[in-house]
């Protein structure tokens, strides 16, 4: 399936069918992520869900966001999560206590929220159609132009935030006396 060139290769109906199939796979992977008893498998199914979302971005002609998704999420966030699982000595096999006791309540809340939101969304946007024709709206050129022409200030503020997060993570994970005292606050 030539997803990157969706406009040229797939008809509008083809884009819808591809979106639907990839969406079903993504949703299935997400459901397995939150229900599986094996902690490491949850992280690996999360890769499938995030990769499926990257394909959905490609189908929506947002190429740059799709590749950023692959790089940041699949590349670094999942690796961080796997390292976290290993450093907290997560059990490798099936762990029977992966779900807490309020699982039925969580199921009720999630199903009620899903029913209400799906009803509202479908009712609100039943006459809205996305027009995917024309040049790609999220190509790297377009994204770079708008990012550095109209969104420069938030972009720079975000770099400061990332620096602060970096320093914070180092301070939190240092293992000496001062950190021990800091941790008790």
């Amino acid at each position, binding site marked *: 399936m030539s997803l990157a060139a969706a406009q040229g290769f797939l008809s509008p109906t083809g884009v819808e069918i591809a979106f639907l199939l990839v969406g079903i796979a993504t949703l299935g992977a997400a459901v397995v992520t939150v229900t599986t008893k094996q902690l490491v498998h949850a992280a690996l199914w999360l890769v499938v869900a995030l990769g499926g979302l990257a394909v959905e971005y490609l189908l*929506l002609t947002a190429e740059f966001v799709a590749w950023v998704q692959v790089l940041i999420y699949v590349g670094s*966030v999942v690796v961080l*999560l796997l390292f976290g699982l290993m450093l907290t000595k997560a059990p490798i096999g099936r762990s029977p206590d992966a779900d*807490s006791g309020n699982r039925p309540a969580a199921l009720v809340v999630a199903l009620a929220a899903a029913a209400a939101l*799906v009803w509202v969304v479908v009712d609100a946007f039943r006459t809205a159609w996305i027009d995917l024709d024309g040049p790609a*709206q999220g190509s790297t050129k377009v994204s770079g132009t708008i990012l550095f022409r109209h969104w420069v200030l938030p972009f720079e503020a975000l770099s400061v935030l990332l620096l602060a997060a970096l320093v914070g*993570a180092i301070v939190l994970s240092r293992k000496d006396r001062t950190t021990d005292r800091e941790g008790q606050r």
Partner: protein
Amino acid sequence: MHLAYPAVLAVLLFCTGLYGVLARRNAILVLMSVELMLNAVNLNLVAFDVWLRDALHAGQALTLFTIAIAAAEIGIGLAIVLMVYRNRGTSDIDKLRDNAETAGPDDAGPDEKAEATA
């Protein structure tokens, strides 16, 4: 493409993440569910950006910012979880009940003492 497809997919992914946050016991699995919820929001932003044909492409710019903030959040969150694991020996959020209103008779005592001595 009908706008309902990405919108409904985002809703279902968000509710899957909601279920995971509420039902999971391991703190790292809760962080994974939070990532799912953030990704549902990102899909909504991209879909509405493409639908509205925004001249500033605010949706895609916000999606990139959200991804960066999610990366920062996961870094800080994992550092906090690792610190909790080092101090308490567990990362199950069920067992971290120091601030519970009605403290259980068995696990509140040792935790209080561990916090006082550490």
